[in-house]
C-alpha cells in the first residue's frame, strides 16, 4: 500500500544519527509510562479483589442460641442464629441453622448444619437417632460420628459456652474441609 510507504519515508533516520533516534526514544518513554500506569491501576484492583481472601476480618463471635430450658436433655433440636458478619442486604442467607444436642446438664454438642462431605444440609431423625444428608447419602449417629456414606469425617462441631443460663455458640463462618467452624 502506497500510504504506508509514504509514512516510512518520513520516519527514515538520516544515516549520520546514532541508533537511538528521537522517535524510538519517545516510544520507549511511552511504553514505560504506560507500564507504570498499568501497575498503578492493577495494584488497587488486585488488592480489592483479593482482600476477601487475605485480609479477613473477624469471622467468629459468641452468639446466643437461646435459653437453656429450650433444649431438653437427651434431645437434639434445631436452633437458628443470625450470623453477626452480614450486610443488611444479606437477607435470609444470614440466618444460620445448627443442631443442638443436649446430653445432660451443661454438656452439649452443637453441630453445623453442613454435611462434612460436600456441605448439604443434614436432617435429624429423632426415631432412628440419625442425621441424614439428602445429597450423596451421608449418615451420622447422634454424636455426629459417621454412620455410613461418603463423609470423610464426623459433623463439624461448634464451640459453645453457657452464660447466665443461656447457650452461646462460637460461630460465624460456614465450615468446610479446609476450615472447620
Amino acid at each position, binding site marked *: 500500500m502506497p500510504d504506508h510507504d509514504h509514512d516510512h519515508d518520513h520516519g527514515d533516520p538520516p544515516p549520520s544519527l546514532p541508533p537511538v533516534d528521537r522517535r524510538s526514544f519517545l516510544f520507549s518513554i511511552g511504553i514505560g509510562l504506560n507500564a507504570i500506569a498499568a501497575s498503578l491501576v492493577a495494584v488497587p484492583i488486585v488488592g480489592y479483589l483479593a482482600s476477601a481472601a487475605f485480609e479477613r476480618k473477624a469471622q467468629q463471635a459468641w452468639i446466643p442460641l437461646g435459653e437453656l430450658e429450650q433444649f431438653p436433655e437427651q434431645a437434639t433440636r434445631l436452633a437458628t442464629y443470625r450470623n453477626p458478619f452480614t450486610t443488611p*442486604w444479606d437477607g435470609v442467607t444470614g440466618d444460620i441453622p445448627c443442631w443442638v444436642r443436649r446430653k445432660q446438664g451443661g454438656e452439649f454438642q452443637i453441630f453445623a*448444619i453442613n454435611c462434612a462431605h460436600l456441605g448439604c444440609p443434614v436432617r435429624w431423625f429423632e426415631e432412628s437417632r440419625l442425621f441424614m444428608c439428602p445429597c450423596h447419602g451421608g449418615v451420622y449417629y447422634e454424636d455426629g460420628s459417621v454412620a455410613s456414606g461418603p463423609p470423610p469425617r464426623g459433623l463439624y462441631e461448634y464451640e459453645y459456652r453457657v452464660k447466665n443460663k443461656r447457650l452461646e455458640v462460637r460461630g460465624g463462618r460456614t465450615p468446610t474441609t479446609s476450615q472447620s467452624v
Partner: protein
Amino acid sequence: MDTLKKVGRWFDERLHLTQLYASSAGHPIPRLSASWWYVFGSASLICFVLQVVTGVCLALVYVPSPNDAYASLEYLNYQQTLGWFLRAVHNWGSIFMVGLMTAHMIQVFLFGAYKYPRELTWVVGCVLFLLTLGAAFTGQIMRFDQDAYWGLQIGMSISSRIPVVGADLVQLIQGGPIIGAETLSRFFALHVFVLPGLTIALLVVHLRLVLTRGINEYPVAGESVDPETYQARYDALLERTGIRFVPDGIDKDLIFGALVIFSILGCAAYFGPVGPNGPADPTLLNTVPRPDFYFLSLFAAFALMPPYLEDFVIVCILPVAVLALFAIPFVSNRGEKHPARRPGAVIGTVMIMTTLCVLAWEGVDSPWSPKMDAWSGEPVPPHLLEGRTPLELQGALLLQSKQCRNCHALDEEGGHRGPDLTDVAMRLTADQLVRQVLQGGGNMPAYAKNLQPDEVSALVAFMRTLHPANALPARDSAVPAVPGNQPRNE
C-alpha cells in the same frame, strides 16, 4: 436504479464492504464442507446471541441481592409481561447451547478438524466450552433458590478440598465467611460481565482462526494430514471445489439454526421457566438439592466414587481431564482424519459420552440418597401384612417408624440406598438379620443403641416373613432342611 448503485458505490468506497465480504462471509469453503455435520458451530453461535439478548432483558428486572432476588424472579414470572417466557427462553437457550457445543466438539473431534493447522482453533474452542459451562453454573446461581444455594455450598466444599489454597479460595469466591450478598453479587458480575465478555472476545479469535486457516475439509478415509503438504492440498481442493460460504454454503446452517430457535421457543412456551424453587433460606431443611443437568454427572460421580478417591479426583483427575482436552491437537496433529480410520477416537468418545449420560441419569434418581419422607409417606404393601401375627405387625410398624424405609424399599417403593427388603428372608437367617440390625455394616448404620431387645425381636420376626409364598426363607445350613415344615420364627 443507477442512482441506487451510485449510492451503494459511494458507501462501499468508504466502508470497504465488498472487501470485508470477500475476506469474511464470502470466503471460499470446500463444497463438501457445506454438510449437515458442520451446522453445530453456527447453531451454538445463534444460541449465544439469543442468550445475550434475553439475558440483557432479564437483567433489566432481576435484582442480584439475596434480599430481593427471589421476589424479583417471582415478579418476572407472574407480573412482568412475558417475563416468564424470557426466563424460559434463557433457560432453554442455555440447555441447547451446552448440548450443541457438545455436539460441535464431538463432530470436530471425530472429523479430525483439530489436526494441523487448526490446533489453536480447537484450544480456543475448548476455552469457549469451559466459559459456557461457567455461564451455565453461574446462571443456575442467579436463580437464587434452594438448589442454587446448596449447589453453591457443594461448589465451595469441593473448592475447599484443594490443598493449601482451599480455605482462601472459598473466602475469595464467597466474598466473606458465608454464602451471602457478596457471593451473589460476585456470581452476577461473572455471569453478566466477565464470562460473556470473555466469550465474545474468544469467539472473535475462534472465527478469525476459521477464516485464516479455512474450514476443515470433509474427511476422506485414506487421506493423511502431513504439515509439509497440507496447505498445498487444501488450496488445490479449494481450487477444484471451492464455493463461497455466503451465499452458496450457508443454506444448511440457516435451516438448522432456524430449527434450533424454533425448538428453544417451543420448549420455553411448553415447559415454561424453571423455578425459583423455594427461597435460598438455609433454615429451610426440607430440601433435596439437585444441580441442573449439565452438572448432574459430576454430582452423581461424587456420590458413587469411593470416598478415598474424592480428593484425588478433585485435585488431579479433573484438572488432568481438562488439560487432556486441550492437549489433543498437540498429541496427534497429523495422520488420518476420517473416523473410520480412527477407531480409538470413536470408542473413546462413545465411552466418555455413555459414562456422562449414565451418571446424569443416575443423578436424576439419586438412589444413593435416603428418601427422606419414605418412612412416614410410603404405604406398606398390604400383601406383606396379610395373615401376620401381632408381633410381626409390630415389626412392620417399627420398620416404618425407625425410618428403615428411608433406605430400604418394600415392593420397590422407598429409598434405594440399601437393598429392597421385599424378599430379605430369602437372603438372611434370623441370626444374620439380628446381627445386621444391631451392628450395621456394608454401609448400614448400627442400631444397637436405638432399639430395645423386644423391638429387635419384632423387627426380625417381620423380616423373616418377607419371602415369596412359594419360596423357602434362608436357613442356617447346620440345621437340616425340612420342606414345608419351616418354623415361623427360629
